[in-house]
């Protein structure tokens, strides 16, 4: 059995969640996915699964996500197990269940980076986007505790029409609470988010203004800001924002973030519902060599064919196109809304 090298592997440890975020990208929260069975989440099974994967995969980082990972009673054991394999562990959480004791315990067990949403400096805006009262205060409390226990945290700002004007002050707040970096994610519809596409998708002008705010904040505070959802170069020239970093879809490359669920299903990334294979039935090497992955990687909107950036950009997020329009080759929502502005 050949071993494969992956910098990062994403593990969805549960589909359950205690928030109802309007921007949620998890495909199983899409109304069309209602009624589909969730993968099993029996304690012990996940560690067996991870052991099986780690026999085949050399990776340096594991990202634990969900749903809300802290809803798993055995999360601390999973973290200890991964730490015993000398992996760096990122935990993506909404922070609502991150009590001081849990922060201390998780850091002690080996969580190296917490990723929390911070959607506004205003409580009401953050809570409305999360669909949950108390979400804002929980995030700030968790950030304070993480710093107290010498952990590291980054925040994710999902840029929507409803909060994008708050970006600069939110970055200030993140910096004040000791965030080590910011993921500036333009709203990328998928899952429940697709339902709110019209009211949440920022305009091109709003996104451009957000990047200007982020550039200023990155310069002023020295805070690394990552534009984590691809921004099409034909729509916005990122060269104007030298203090921001950005990237494109890495699916299929060695730097892809393959996503694993508790049943052992492997997907090209956490935004797509496309299952490449199951780790109990095939090796990771076989899954990475599958035709399904080749099709996923090759998919690109016809609109992009004449573009000089087509191979790097690939049209943006094909998973969003897939979830919103049922086709990996469709123009994803941000491109579709702004195609008339594309520089060709």
């Amino acid at each position: 059995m050949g071993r494969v090298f992956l910098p990062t592997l994403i593990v969805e440890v549960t589909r359950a969640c205690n928030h109802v975020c309007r921007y949620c990208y998890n495909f199983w929260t899409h109304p069309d996915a209602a009624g589909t069975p969730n993968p099993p989440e029996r304690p012990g099974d996940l560690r067996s699964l991870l052991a099986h994967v780690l026999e085949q995969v050399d990776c340096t980082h594991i990202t634990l996500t969900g749903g809300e990972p802290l809803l798993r009673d055995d999360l601390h054991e999973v973290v200890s197990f991964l730490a015993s394999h000398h992996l760096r562990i990122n935990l993506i959480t909404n922070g609502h269940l991150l009590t001081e004791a849990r922060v201390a315990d998780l850091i002690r067990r080996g969580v190296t980076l917490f990723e929390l949403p911070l959607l506004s400096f205003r409580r009401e805006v953050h809570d409305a986007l999360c669909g949950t009262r108390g979400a804002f205060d929980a995030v700030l409390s968790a950030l304070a505790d993480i710093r107290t226990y010498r952990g590291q945290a980054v925040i994710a700002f999902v840029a929507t029409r409803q909060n994008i004007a708050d970006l600069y002050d939110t970055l200030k707040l993140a910096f004040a609470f000791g965030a080590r970096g910011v993921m500036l994610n333009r709203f990328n519809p998928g899952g429940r988010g697709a339902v709110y596409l019209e009211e949440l998708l920022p305009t091109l002008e709003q996104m451009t203004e957000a990047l200007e705010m982020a550039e200023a904040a990155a310069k002023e505070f020295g805070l690394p800001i990552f534009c984590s959802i691809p921004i099409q170069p034909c729509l916005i020239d990122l060269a104007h924002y030298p203090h921001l970093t950005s990237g494109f879809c890495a699916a299929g490359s060695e730097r892809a973030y393959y996503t694993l669920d508790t049943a052992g299903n492997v997907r090209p990334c956490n935004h797509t519902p496309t299952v490449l294979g199951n780790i109990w039935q095939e090796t990771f090497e076989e899954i990475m060599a599958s035709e399904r992955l080749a099709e996923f990687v090759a998919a690109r909107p016809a609109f992009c064919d004449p573009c000089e950036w087509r191979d790097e950009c690939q049209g943006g997020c094909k998973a969003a196109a897939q979830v919103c329009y049922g086709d990996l080759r469709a123009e994803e929502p941000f491109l579709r809304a702004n195609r008339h502005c594309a520089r060709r």
Partner: protein
Amino acid sequence: MPMTRREFLSAIGVALASLLTSRCLPSCYTPVPPAMTPTGQGDDWDRLRRCWWDLDLLARDARDLEKGQQALQKFTAEHRAALDALVAAGQVSPEVADDLQVAFEGAAYHVWRANAPITCYIIAPPLYEFQSNVDLAQQAELLEEMAKKGALDPDTVARARAAIERDIAWRSLTAEEQEAILEAAQQAKYPPLEELGLEIPASAREAARILVELLLKQR
């Protein structure tokens, strides 16, 4: 958490790579003898050395996704091949060769990762590190500003403020005192400074406080 042998060797590799890729040669100020190749070796030692010396080429290639991946694989394979040849020639034991490979893989991965362009979605290092108490003072100032603007929970703000003050105090400690705190923190919940039995002079505490107030323009 204690460092494993593998982590230690990898860290050695990273440290060496950091020096080598900066082209910092140990010959500027102190006379040193010419680099000696162990007796009896030939091209395979040179091959091995070349892998290390060429890490800056890996750094250059890493800026391109495809080229970087190929270069990383090529470098690690070339290093392994040179070691295998040395093992076959009886010049290095297999155990030492494995350790050397671990160090090199740590170095090569570090160089590659530090230079590769970020992918979408996943955050990548380097993360923010405060460089001075001025940075911390700026955080404290923004905390007060945002606490008012965002009507934040006073208890949360107090904890965040305490953490900033603690970081400022931390920077005032000696390396030995910091080490003692880190050891204690690994044992249990982060303890108050008072319980550590450290001899932190009152003047140091006062100096930290003055610094905070000074930089916040409260003095």
